[in-house]
């Protein structure tokens, strides 16, 4: 072989490789990536797809709401120590600072075969990759009479932060002194395991200061408190003795809106003045409708290396909608972490690289037991190759030893940082 021939073949070889590399990069730059839902999962995914692709990926976020309202911290609004504006963040930094295209609209259907998404406005958008992060749907039919009662405003859920959060505080504020605020909890899994118990603390804190003859009744379908149990029970005994009553194994089956009466599987009926009924939950409506909820028709099974749905290729599902790995909570922090694993995997796939075989997730969850003191639970989840799931690391994570004001400061610090990380 002469030198010219050698150089020619080398150039051809280089060209082949360059072509491959160029192809992969072109895929990353040309692919249409649609993110459906701008909660902790979706907003974070949109931002990190841009960051991890060095601002080359084409990312569109579809979200019906004009601004983001945080579910974490919203119990303080129910209890009246904070306002809804303090937990609301704009979406526009995602477009201004990160180049995410934002469409304020709802997705009415997804066609996984044609790879298109239809919007309420009538538009149809194509996608190469879709990220579906719709949160949870409330299964109103799981409690007889709930849909009508909720529609009439007699019962409120306030489990998706927004107008109902404010309305529930108003109901609490206008409740007669000597009245009962009842909160019902469905069987786990549901969004935010400690959330209902934190809410009970916030309502009790309000009553302690404003309506001393009133009480909070916790009607829990579970056998026991599902998260931070010992800490909550200690707080109830020490700070809210005579105000909070906890009734486990009380599964609400029906509500009579006229008489504000709750019915149970076994126990006698209970009447209350304010009804905050949390029904069973499932993956968000669009995920169920698209056929992604292949775990008992309620939750979405995903490949935990890239959060791709096991039901449909190129649809990645994040956050509260998924069938969780063992000990993985349905929390805002966790949804943010799902988003980063999915974003990195999608950037890798579209760049022609192997997906990270060893992703890591953390969770931290703060609960306010009054307006200043907080308890937390934390965990670290490493991917387990043999079992193809995330497993908590033995010896890691844990609970607070007791409520503290220092953790109260950290809880607000966490909130400001995660809002900035997801949306800023």
């Amino acid at each position, binding site marked *: 072989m002469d030198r010219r021939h050698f150089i020619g073949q080398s150039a051809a070889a280089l060209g082949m490789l360059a072509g491959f590399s160029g192809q992969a990069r072109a895929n990353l730059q040309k692919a249409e990536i649609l993110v459906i839902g701008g909660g902790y999962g979706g907003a974070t995914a949109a931002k990190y797809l841009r960051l991890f692709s060095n601002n080359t990926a084409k990312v569109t976020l579809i979200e019906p709401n004009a601004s983001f309202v945080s579910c974490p911290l919203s119990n303080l609004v129910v209890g009246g120590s904070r306002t809804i504006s303090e937990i609301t963040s704009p979406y526009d930094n995602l477009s201004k600072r990160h180049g995410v295209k934002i469409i304020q609209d709802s997705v009415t259907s997804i066609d996984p075969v044609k790879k298109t998404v239809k919007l309420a406005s009538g538009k149809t958008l194509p996608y190469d990759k879709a990220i579906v992060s719709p949160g949870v749907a409330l299964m109103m039919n799981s409690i007889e009479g709930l849909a009508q009662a909720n529609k009439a405003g007699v019962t409120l859920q306030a489990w998706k932060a927004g107008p109902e959060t404010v309305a529930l505080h108003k109901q609490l504020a206008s409740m007669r002194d000597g009245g009962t605020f009842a909160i019902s909890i469905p069987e786990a899994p549901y969004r935010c395991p400690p959330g209902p118990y934190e809410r009970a603390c916030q309502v009790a804190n309000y009553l302690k200061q404003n309506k001393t003859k009133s009480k909070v009744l916790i009607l829990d379908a579970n056998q026991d408190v599902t998260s931070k149990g010992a800490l909550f029970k200690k707080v109830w005994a020490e700070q809210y003795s005579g105000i909070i009553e906890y009734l486990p194994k009380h599964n609400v089956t029906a509500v009579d809106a006229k008489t504000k009466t709750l019915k149970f599987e076994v126990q006698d009926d209970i009447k209350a003045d304010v009804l905050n009924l949390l029904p069973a939950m499932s993956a968000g409506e669009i995920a169920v409708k698209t056929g992604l909820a292949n775990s008992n028709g309620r939750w979405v099974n995903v490949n935990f290396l890239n959060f791709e749905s096991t039901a449909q290729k190129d649809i990645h599902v994040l956050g509260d909608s998924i069938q969780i790995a063992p000990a993985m909570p349905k929390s805002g922090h966790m949804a943010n972490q799902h988003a980063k694993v999915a974003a990195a995997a999608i950037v890798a796939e579209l760049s022609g*690289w192997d997906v990270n075989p060893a992703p890591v997730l953390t969770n931290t969850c703060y609960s306010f037991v009054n307006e200043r003191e907080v308890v937390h639970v934390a965990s670290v989840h490493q991917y387990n190759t043999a079992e193809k799931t995330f497993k908590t690391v033995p010896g890691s*994570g844990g609970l607070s030893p007791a409520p503290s004001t220092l953790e109260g400061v950290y809880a607000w610090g*966490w909130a400001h940082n995660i809002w900035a*990380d997801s949306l800023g």
Partner: protein
Amino acid sequence: MKSALLLGAILSLITASGFSQAQSADATKLYHRSLAATCANCHGTDGKGVVDGGMPLINNLTSEQMLTQLKAFKSGAREGTIMPQLAKGYSDEQLEIIANQLGKK
């Protein structure tokens, strides 16, 4: 045959040292960024936390200082609320990657 072998050898050489290494370096960088991003929920994107936000800021630490603190949390030598619990969930190698990624350069 000879030229095919030579081409194969060239391809191997290029693959081992050229483009694939570049790809691999980019992919590794992405993995490291995504590992460090597990800290961002509390300490801000790329370790740049919200100033006066209430959470301890880490963006003034060098990589060495950060690794020393992470190891101290993991061993229990340094007390804290959540960090001793979280640090125990990462391998030493992962803590090094995080410190290298987020520490002030």
